[in-house]
């Protein structure tokens, strides 16, 4: 997709020739780590913004502050704050946000209307009430309905709830797990309620196809990202096209919307690159307001710059307004190289509490000890740095 933008760049910068190499997203992370170890990295690369801490630990990313300082086009204020923060480690900027992927609720308007709601409630308390009404209505009719689908193979809902209840996933300067602390416990107990009261299915067997289940009304609300706007437009049958909508996340406090995640991808320059000036030019070009709008038009990926959202092509799309509201309140995730490993393991514990294999207390205690083991090296490094 990005190939379509390149001719314009090459026209503006004669003398720079860009070779675009595609790698499947699922293999990209492993492939790039291997490339770093094998010293065969590209000049510019798109990476998931949650990978930045890992590549920074590898000492493989070029600090971008000097380039940004000289740039005319790059204004930090123009970027959504939480999104930009994902690229800053120890106050050094390593990546430029390229597109954002925050998470919002997709819901069935008709099914919520049946329960007396015009949109999802603004608090989780309200969502529980709504779910209860929907569940009871369905039971009265003798049909199977799960108001709020929280997949047991996704870590996003658990982490979103954890952030809303105050974050603090880790403690002691990110060297110990703090999931059994009061904040995350609140979040996990709320999550468990959805499974135990059967507001959400507690396994993945039932939902083999998200879009079918959504169309059938088996599920009415689901937290997901911007790519599903396209998928929903294609896969939901025409008769229901007017009946799905997006909304920002409910909140655990009185401020709306509730905090969501500033996921997405960033453009980075590898330290080993021998053409850093040219590499930066490409990054600057791709991250510019104009190109991020062009990229949105081609792919539907949402721009990380506020100014780009003023463009009519974005303003006209009714489904992305929720994303705009949501992006005003996104908080960065802990920036440690082990984070991915932590959240993948968390999914297993979500499965454990969903299926009642473990109680919330047991699950969080065990999970914390696993996290502590993952962070052992961090503790040792911190200890070593403290000594003179």
């Amino acid at each position: 997709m990005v190939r379509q933008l390149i001719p314009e760049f090459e026209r503006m910068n004669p003398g720079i020739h860009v070779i675009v190499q595609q790698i499947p997203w699922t293999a990209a992370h492993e492939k790039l780590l291997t490339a770093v170890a094998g010293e065969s990295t590209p000049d510019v690369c798109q990476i998931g913004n949650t990978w930045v801490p890992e590549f920074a630990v590898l000492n493989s990313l070029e600090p971008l502050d000097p380039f940004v300082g000289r740039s005319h086009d790059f204004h930090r204020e123009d970027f959504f704050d939480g999104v930009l923060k994902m690229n800053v480690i120890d106050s050094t900027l390593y990546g430029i946000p390229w597109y954002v992927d925050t998470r919002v609720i997709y819901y069935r308007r008709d099914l919520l209307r049946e329960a007396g709601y015009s949109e999802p409630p603004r608090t989780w308390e309200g969502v529980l009430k709504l779910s209860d009404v929907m569940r009871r209505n369905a039971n009265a009719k003798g049909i199977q309905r799960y108001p709020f689908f929280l997949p047991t193979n996704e870590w996003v809902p658990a982490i979103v709830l954890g952030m809303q209840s105050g974050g603090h996933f880790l403690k002691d300067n990110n060297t110990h797990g703090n999931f059994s602390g009061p904040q995350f416990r609140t979040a996990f107990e709320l999550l468990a309620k959805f499974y135990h009261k059967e507001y959400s299915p507690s396994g993945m067997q039932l939902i083999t196809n998200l879009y079918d289940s959504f169309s059938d009304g088996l599920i009415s609300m689901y937290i997901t990202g911007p790519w599903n706007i396209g998928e929903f437009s294609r896969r939901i049958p025409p008769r229901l096209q007017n009946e799905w909508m997006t909304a920002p996340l409910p909140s655990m406090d009185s401020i709306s919307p509730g905090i969501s995640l500033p996921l997405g991808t960033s453009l980075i320059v590898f330290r080993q690159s021998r053409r850093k000036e040219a590499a930066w030019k490409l990054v600057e070009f791709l991250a510019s307001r104009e190109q991020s709008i062009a990229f949105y038009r081609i792919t539907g990926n949402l721009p990380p710059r506020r100014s780009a959202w003023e463009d009519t092509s974005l303003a006209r799309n009714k489904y992305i307004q929720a994303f705009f509201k949501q992006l005003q309140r996104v908080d960065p995730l802990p920036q440690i190289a082990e984070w991915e490993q932590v959240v993948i393991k968390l999914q297993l514990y979500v499965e454990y509490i969903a299926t009642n294999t473990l109680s919330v207390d047991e699950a969080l205690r065990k999970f914390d000890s696993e996290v502590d083991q993952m962070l052992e090296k961090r503790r040792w490094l911190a200890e070593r740095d403290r000594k003179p």
Partner: protein
Amino acid sequence: MSSGMRGHDNHTAAAWLFLAPSLTAIAVFFVIPVLSALVMSFTDFDIYAVGNLNVVRFMGFRNYIRIFETPLFWKALKNTFYFVLVGGPLSVAVSLGTALMVNSKLARFKPFYRTVYFLPVVTSLVAVAVVWRYLYHPAHGLLNLALSFFGVAPIDWLGNPDIAMPAIVVLAVWKNFGYNMLIFIAGLQNIPEDLYEAAHIDGAGGWRQFVDITIPMLAPTTVFVVMITVIGYFQLFAEPYIMTEGGPMNATMSVVLMMYEQGFRWWNMGFAAAIAFVLFAVILIFSILQLIIQRRLQQ
């Protein structure tokens, strides 16, 4: 006498010379990496170490101790044993069965069947696994469609923790039996025809001939096939990697997949290397046991 010695030396030198290229290749691509991995398994080489070699620590046997303290390892080992003990015999039985059929005097179009049965072996496992994932799809898969004609409710082949591993066994057996079949066919063709003629004259029926001639005469082939299959099956990786990523609830997590995840996903190279050597030990013990049992049986 002396010239004889010199001749011997010359032969040795020539032998070394001819062996040098392959020995070098083995040293560079096998011995050195294996030794480095062994050293690595006693360290905590990880993502921090790739960035800065000064932070590597010598761990002694702590990686190995940690492996045995990790519940996931035991789960992966159990899954792998399940795969070996169910899939291995099944694979050998299917190979032997098809070899007998293809080799039978009654069979026609032998080359055709040989090719068809061998085809999965030479097909890329990745492509095969992707296609089988479609076959296993709970809602749109051909397998469930076929079963629906018999009134069987849709089965979530790869999503159900109890069924996912058997589903992978079926795929692996289908994928691999052709190779062993060819070896069995070669073994069958080495059995002298006059043994069967003699047995026939003595009045032995087909079953007696199979039990008293075919099976004993195939024993060396069978030893080889079982050994190769078991060693291969212990290294189960690509099938769960592509089809289930070890899920659901780690029901298809294998030892090699765990090693891969630790090594290349989380970059815990020291720990992953230790897993590799534990697996090596398991395979070694298993192979020795197998040899002992087979010796006993032969005596």
